[in-house]
């Protein structure tokens, strides 16, 4: 009964190159991409588990456009064996709920259900740098119907069907014992992700990535994409600094500088000049019926 180690990864734009499209959704077409940092720690956690389960099958999964194949190949170059990509235009604009639902549906399609005879463990990053929600691991666990531990720094197998996870909590940590199958999400504080190996890179180059569309996994369109997602991004505005210009201390030595600071504090600082409130255009409120939902 070999263990299957499943890593979920997301490809993200390099944080320095993040751009947003006109529609308020992520524009992924231009930026250079990497595997999300937290997901890299998830990949490494999977490779660490391999030490205790040398005969484990290692698979990596992602959901996104075809360009995400690059992330899957990188994971294989690190040591993974198989790669699956869920890619379908109809998934575009999915929120976290729809994403969790779609990924869980793909995993179930691959045979990973709560009643699986074979044990498996799903590893994921704590959160992504372009979304920052940390939702998807929990949503996948719930949809498959298996236990979870999130914000985990390290995970060890006890050699049977259980794993011990060190979960980071506010000001401390918890050690938890979870039966497999389960979902674990990893913080970027554990064992640093390894580099790609040469043999891995060769394997990755020749790898056949299995790509599914939503029809292949039996996922309908009702609950995915922009129209199926329960949430929408209604608007996005730039954040502006709300602090007035600084008052700097003056003086040639620390005594004078500190004197000046204390005097400035006593006097009070600058006040933010309120920009004239932009006259709000009275938006035509259409005569639609109210919907109380």
């Amino acid at each position, binding site marked *: 009964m070999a263990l299957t180690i499943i890593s979920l990864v997301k490809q993200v734009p390099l944080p320095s190159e*993040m751009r*947003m499209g006109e529609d308020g959704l992520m524009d992924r077409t231009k930026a250079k991409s990497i595997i999300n940092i937290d997901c890299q720690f998830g990949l490494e956690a999977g490779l660490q588990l391999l030490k205790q389960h040398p005969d484990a099958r290692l698979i990596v999964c992602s959901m996104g456009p075809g360009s995400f194949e690059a992330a899957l190949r990188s994971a294989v170059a690190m040591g993974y064996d198989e790669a699956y990509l869920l890619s379908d235009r109809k998934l575009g604009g999915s929120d*976290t*709920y729809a994403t*969790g*639902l779609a990924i869980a549906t793909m995993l179930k399609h691959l045979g990973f259900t709560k009643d699986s005879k074979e044990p498996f463990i799903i590893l994921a990053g704590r959160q992504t740098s372009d979304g*920052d*929600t*940390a*939702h998807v691991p*929990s949503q996948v666990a*719930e*949809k498959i119907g298996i*236990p*979870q*531990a*999130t914000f985990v720094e390290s995970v060890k197998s006890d050699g049977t069907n259980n794993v011990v996870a060190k979960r980071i*909590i*506010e*000001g*401390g*940590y*918890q*050690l*938890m*014992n*979870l039966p497999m199958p*389960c979902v674990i999400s990893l913080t970027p504080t554990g064992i640093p992700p390894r580099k790609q190996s040469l043999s891995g890179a060769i394997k990755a180059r020749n790898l056949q990535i299995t790509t599914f569309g939503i029809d292949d996994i039996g996922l309908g369109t009702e*609950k995915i994409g922009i129209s199926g997602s*329960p*949430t*929408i*991004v*209604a*608007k*996005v*505005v*730039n954040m502006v*600094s*709300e*602090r007035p210009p*600084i*008052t*700097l*201390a003056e003086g040639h030595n*620390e005594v004078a500088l*500190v004197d*000046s*600071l*204390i005097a400035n*504090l*006593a006097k009070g600082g600058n006040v933010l000049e309120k920009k004239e409130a932009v006259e709000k255009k009275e938006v035509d*409120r*259409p005569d*639609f*019926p*109210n*919907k*109380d*939902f």
Partner: protein
Amino acid sequence: MTLIIGKKVESLTQTLIEHGSDEVIFVENDRLEEYLVLPFTSIFTQLIKERNPEIALFAATTSGRELAPRIGMRTSSGVTADCTGLEIGEYISKKEQVIYTPILESRRPTYGESKLATILGFVCPQVSTARAGTFEVPERVVGRKGITTPFKPNLDEKDFVVEVIKTVRGEGGLQNLFDADLIVSGGRGTTTDSLGLIKQLAEALKSQGINAEWACSRPVVDEGITEYARQVGQTGKTVRPKIYIAVGISGAIQHIAGMKESGTVIAINQNPKASIFNNADFGIIGNYQDILPELIERVKSGYTFGLEAKK
């Protein structure tokens, strides 16, 4: 209404009412002394089915951030993570020719904290998690009256398959960073003495009866000098003290995100171009190893940045 789950929680219900809850529903269970995502999800979902709330809010803590999406998946609700603003508004749907009202507008920073997005949910309950430290705790009104309701959920043994072997909490999780009136925070520029002067300044203020605490920015944690719990910023804590003193902190946008709600911000940095100076009210350009000893002396002789000492 508020739902509280745990062991010996009935005694806390009055506190919640005094802070603004009209009804506190409590689940008293010895096995739920420590938070466990599976039974908590089940209890919340049972209550949501029974009461049909329009909105369900959770703290964006390590517990809330996994609990909310798990519950949301079960109730088919979307979840908005880590909100810094929550308002009630309306949404005009041209496609459906209806106006959704009232609707929860959840605002959250996005794109490295440079933009603020408004997220709407169309399935009730609309679920959001609120970033710790960004919302003020409603003032306590002693003697405020409200309803206290016990709730007896159906608990499934299967929800107890995960066992918490042990829980370790150091220094009370540094919750006091959220309550401190003054925070002295050290950045990469103060690692020379491993934040020694930062700690001394905070200690001197404490000796004067000021509710002061020290914190740091991310590079300090990354270098292993202090624990993560002291980190202020996007990936650490969000704090709002009356006075925030940033020492040797360059002012990366991720750090600003964690302290911009502070009352008065004082920056001390030897680089006049540091962006922290664009996000501070008062500043000194200088080396902290010169400035801080002088400042510590002033505090020792009674200077408290205008804050009133606790008796």
